[in-house]
């Protein structure tokens, strides 16, 4: 078991280094101080980048053993260094001027979050293997199949013979690589790996948001996400919904920061997280595509000259999924989910017969999304902040509300066209699939509050493609940089 933990540590150090090099490449990390501050973000970036490349390597026939994994990390690091020679460093984060009570608020919320992460670390150390049905019914068996049979295998009892064979292989690929580093199957060590990702997410999201928003807004918002009533269930889980929420949440933050600051670094990071989300789960592709489409609409409406990066972001989910679909098609596997077929949208008779399902989905999904016993007040608070920010920063508010509406409609459509009993389908999946939407709401909440509390002129000044990050900073609680 000690060897397993040592192996996991080695894997995580490799991911951290790879992600750090990506951040060096885009100019966010150029010295030890910024490297330390953005270490959490570096890990998540490394996790996502490695995960996407490992998925492509699996589709190309590799097994992603320790040697291949280190080669992929070296490739990412090399690309980061080469990019870093061309890309200038980002402006350093300026300290926020805050009132003493606001600083205490930020410290208090941060300390609360840190204490909870320590408790979760202890829990992860003693935790057993994940008992959730999907984990042992297909997520971990797929990882074991990759580990034992040397990659993606279509024989009986191998990768393609478990539920949802059309799901991309990022998570099983990450777990099987972790098993290679650990020297064997140690499913009970995976909660610790989940803890590392979750802690890196909170640290990384905090570091990203603090570049623009007062810490007094950032840390209470992150604490709100960590202490959601159902968060404890998902934070150390071994299925894909928690990492999907992390990657989609960070891609939404980067999309919002790009919208506000017009700094292409954020568009690049957004693309990395979107690619990762796409290769995690089918919902990742759908939600990611919707996010880029709404972002594109907002950007084109605000400033037509920025359409190129927006269009490139729309292409990210579409192009990322292509190699996986090719692998499925060339190996005789179903290229779409057995639970729904979008081609059914072209059959009005089929849809009309099932109109009741759409009605049921549209009435049930908001109940899952707004449920205070699941997510506290995260979604209503984010919507209230969006309403408040609409006057000064309509783009950001439209991005959140528009994406939520489109994602909810997309989910309702999936439930509508599916042939499986809708009661069972919603009961077994709705809470998990709305998790990403809730996390996006929680992460955009401090940005919206910051915009709501700045004057219209400050808001307009900061969008005018002037790339002055400090101009639109929070005026609430004395921020203003």
């Amino acid at each position, binding site marked *: *078991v000690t060897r397993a933990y040592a192996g996991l540590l080695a894997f995580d150090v490799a991911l951290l280094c790879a992600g750090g090099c990506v951040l060096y490449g885009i100019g966010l990390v150029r010295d030890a101080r910024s490297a330390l501050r953005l270490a959490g973000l570096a890990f998540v970036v490394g996790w996502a980048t490695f995960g996407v490349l490992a998925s492509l390597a699996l589709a190309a026939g590799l097994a992603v053993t320790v040697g291949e994994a280190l080669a992929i990390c070296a490739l990412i690091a090399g690309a980061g260094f080469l990019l870093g020679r061309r890309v200038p460093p980002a402006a350093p984060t300026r300290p926020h001027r805050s009132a003493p009570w606001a600083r205490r*608020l930020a410290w208090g*919320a941060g300390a*609360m979050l840190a204490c*909870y992460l320590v*408790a979760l670390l*202890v*829990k992860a150390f*003693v*935790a*057993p*293997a*994940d*008992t959730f*049905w999907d*984990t*042992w*019914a297909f997520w*971990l*068996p797929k990882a*074991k*199949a990759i580990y*034992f049979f040397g990659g993606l295998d279509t*024989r*009986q*009892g*191998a990768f393609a*013979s*478990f539920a949802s064979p059309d799901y991309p292989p990022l998570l099983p690929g990450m777990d099987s690589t972790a098993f290679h580093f650990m020297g064997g*199957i*140690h*499913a*009970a060590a995976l909660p610790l790996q989940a803890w590392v990702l979750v802690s890196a997410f909170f640290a990384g999201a905090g570091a990203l948001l603090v570049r623009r928003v007062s810490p*007094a*807004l950032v840390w*209470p*918002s992150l*604490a*709100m996400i*960590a*202490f959601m*009533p159902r*968060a*404890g269930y998902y934070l150390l889980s071994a299925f894909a919904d928690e990492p999907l929420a992390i990657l989609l949440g960070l891609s939404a933050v980067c999309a919002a920061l790009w919208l506000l600051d017009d700094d292409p670094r954020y568009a690049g990071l957004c693309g990395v997280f979107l690619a990762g989300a796409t290769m995690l789960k089918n919902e990742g592709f759908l939600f990611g595509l919707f996010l880029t489409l709404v972002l594109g609409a907002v950007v084109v409406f605000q400033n037509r000259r920025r359409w190129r990066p927006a269009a490139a972001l729309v292409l990210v989910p579409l192009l990322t999924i292509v190699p996986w679909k090719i692998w499925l098609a060339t190996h005789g596997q179903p290229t779409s989910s057995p639970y729904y077929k979008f081609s059914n949208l072209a059959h009005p008779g089929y849809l009309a017969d099932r109109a009741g399902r759409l009605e049921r989905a549209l009435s049930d999904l908001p109940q899952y999304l707004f449920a205070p016993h699941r997510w*506290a*007040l*995260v979604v209503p*608070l984010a919507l209230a*902040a969006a309403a*408040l920010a609409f006057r*000064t920063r309509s783009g950001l508010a439209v991005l959140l509300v528009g994406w939520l509406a489109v994602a909810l409609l997309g989910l309702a459509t999936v439930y509508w066209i599916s042939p499986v009993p809708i009661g069972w389908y919603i009961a077994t999946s709705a809470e998990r699939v709305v998790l990403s939407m809730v996390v996006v709401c929680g992460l955009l*909440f401090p940005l919206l*509050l910051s915009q*709501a*509390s700045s*004057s*219209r002129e400050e808001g307009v000044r900061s969008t005018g493609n002037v790339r002055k990050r400090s101009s639109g900073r929070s*005026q*609430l*609680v004395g921020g203003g940089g």
Partner: protein
Amino acid sequence: MPWTRTFVISQGMRLVTRRRLALVLLLVALGSAVWEVPSAFRSAGRDISDWAGMGPTQRELAPARYAGISGRILLGAARIIPPDTLFAVVTGRPTTRLSPFALLAAPSLSYYWLFPRRHTNDLGQAAWVLSYNKNIDRLGLSYSRVLRLTPDVTVAEVRR
């Protein structure tokens, strides 16, 4: 000009109102987190004390315990069925020791645990059969070895 002054004052007041409302939202967000702190720590503490004494094998077998399947069954099957073989899982009716949920979970859990053995749904190809309270004599196969793991669960090597 008076109307400009009125406009500026009104804008300023709106900004102050928005800032106050934003502060209220922030405090509600923080309050909702603080409200959940005791139950979050209590839940984490409960899990830690429940799991702290578990050994490595028990931790790995937690999904089986969750489904109500004895770890002895999976460990025994892994000891008997050789690696690199095809096996099938069949299930019968519930018993006092095997609930309907356990029978529902049994195939997936067995596939999960018995790697690197590969599972098949085609009994004609299986070299081994793992039966959860199913009469294997009615499967139309002949066996070279039949071993009872528990009163309800049998593992049998198919004669080819």
